[in-house]
């Protein structure tokens, strides 16, 4: 504790003729015991919120890194480039451990009590929906995504006492050897509707960024259909835009919803403009222009 000075030898200097009252001395009265018991409850709540918030910040950072890795992908294809998939897997393993560490704290009534401290889930949804889109060119449903995230939290729980190598082996190291009834007892974290919806809102921004880079490098809009006759990313974004426009307004947090919707609208318009540019000016490309062979622009694995 501070409160007094020390001499050169490090011994506390006593102030002469002035005795301070002992710090933290509380004048007790009839109400003190009640407040003390309430304090203990409040402290427990604040501590828990802090722990969740800390893990949440880390999960957000990791999710952002996953998204950055995924933005280096150059085509929609069912298998991601190996180095990127590996990066994603290691980060997911870290996220799994973090999720597992806070899962016991957010069971039952506490799930929504600390929903605000768990904003990381929105970011994680963004990363995972983007991951799913790049592989399949579809939007993962809320149910499937919830199952994936719940599973992730359980895996993290298992990984904690098992060997780390398991997690690093990547590709969601199968933990099926664990009895499934035991799996169900492990505390886990699911998604709320808001986590999912807001995450998907943000997905449109990532899709826009992805469409911009790939179209600049390859000269055409990304699509999982190599022949060019299937739907491309612009049509997908239109569809997502319509999806959100037609959903009824959320009564609760209208302003967040509208803000996100506006950003989505802008993203859609940006890719529209891109496609228009490709159509009109694409024919003006100099003869002999060849698109960059995809993924050739990647300087190996960064970091």
């Amino acid at each position, binding site marked *: 504790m501070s409160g007094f000075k020390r001499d050169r030898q490090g011994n506390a200097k006593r102030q002469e003729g002035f005795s301070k009252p002992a710090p933290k001395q*509380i*004048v007790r*009265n*009839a*109400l*003190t015991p*009640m*407040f*003390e018991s*309430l*304090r203990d*409850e*409040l*402290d427990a709540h*604040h501590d828990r919120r802090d722990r969740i918030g800390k893990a949440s910040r880390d999960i957000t950072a990791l999710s952002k890194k996953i998204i950055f890795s995924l933005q280096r992908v150059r085509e929609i294809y*069912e298998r991601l480039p190996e180095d990127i998939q590996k990066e994603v897997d290691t980060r997911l393993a870290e996220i799994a451990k973090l999720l597992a560490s806070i899962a016991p704290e957010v069971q*039952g*009534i*506490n*799930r*929504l*009590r600390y*929903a605000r401290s768990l904003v990381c889930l929105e970011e994680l949804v963004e990363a995972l929906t983007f991951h799913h889109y790049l592989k*399949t*060119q*579809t*939007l993962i*449903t*809320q149910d499937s995504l919830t199952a994936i995230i719940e599973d992730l939290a359980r895996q993290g729980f298992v990984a904690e006492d098992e060997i780390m190598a398991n997690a690093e082996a990547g590709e969601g190291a199968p933990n099926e050897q664990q009895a499934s009834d035991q799996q169900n007892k492990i505390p886990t974290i699911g998604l709320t*509707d808001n986590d999912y*919806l807001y995450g998907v809102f943000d997905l449109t921004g990532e899709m826009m960024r992805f469409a911009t880079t790939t179209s600049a490098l390859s000269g055409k809009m990304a*699509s*999982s*259909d190599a022949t060019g006759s*299937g*739907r491309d990313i612009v*049509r*997908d974004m239109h*569809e*997502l835009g319509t*999806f959100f426009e*037609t*959903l*009824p307004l*959320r*009564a*609760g947090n209208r302003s967040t919803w509208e803000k996100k919707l506006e950003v989505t609208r802008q993203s859609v318009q940006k890719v529209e403009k891109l496609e228009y540019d490709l159509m009109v000016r694409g024919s003006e490309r100099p003869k002999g222009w060849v698109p960059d062979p995809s993924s050739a622009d990647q300087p190996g694995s960064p970091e």
Partner: protein
Amino acid sequence: MSKSKPLIDPSLFDQLRIKIEEDTAIRKDLDKIIDDLTQHVAYTQGLLSRIHSTPRSKYPDVLLPMVEEGVRRETEGVKVLGEFAGKLSYYKYCYRWNRAVQDAISTVLLTTWLGGLGTEERKGEVGKLLGLEEVGAVFGVPVNLKDRDAFHITIEDYLLGLVNIVDELARLAMNSVTLGDTEMAVKISGFVKDLHAGFQVLNLKNDILRKRVDSIKYSVKKVEDVVYDLSLRNLIPGRMEE
């Protein structure tokens, strides 16, 4: 594969739409229930404002019976709310009714402090502060639930409700002197100081509770000024002969 599978699973839209519509319907119903409760709370608060012009001797006959009737309406409102909200996730909607419930708690705390709401085992007396559990008992709802998700009164609700009455009491200290009841002012002074010390026991974070608790010191100052004025003029009972 992209041809066979659409971007968005067709069932997803309806699934989300239904959820949002349900949510909207719940909010509408809640609004009505909370509106009713707010009415009762405002009515009771209005009745309680008479403390500033009613001498203490008239509390039991004139003031308290009416206020107790107001509180009874409040408890009914809270009961309706509790029944409806009991089926919902507490923390999903609680911010909608927190304010109304906190104000209701305030009226109950103030009424009992004035000696109202006496029961068989607990006679009404001036200066009585109800604890969290006792407040829950008045409303007939659980408090500080941790193990299950249902309607309840939280610690924060109680503390915020408690902060609310401090300002009212500080005002009463002044007005009771005007009504010739200096003893009441001294009583309030002691209570407000105890409360102030009590709130300092808490480790508050930078949140709404902290903000509101910070305002207590002004009430303490107000009450101290009144007591100072009284003691300067030897108007405090029991000390007059000195």
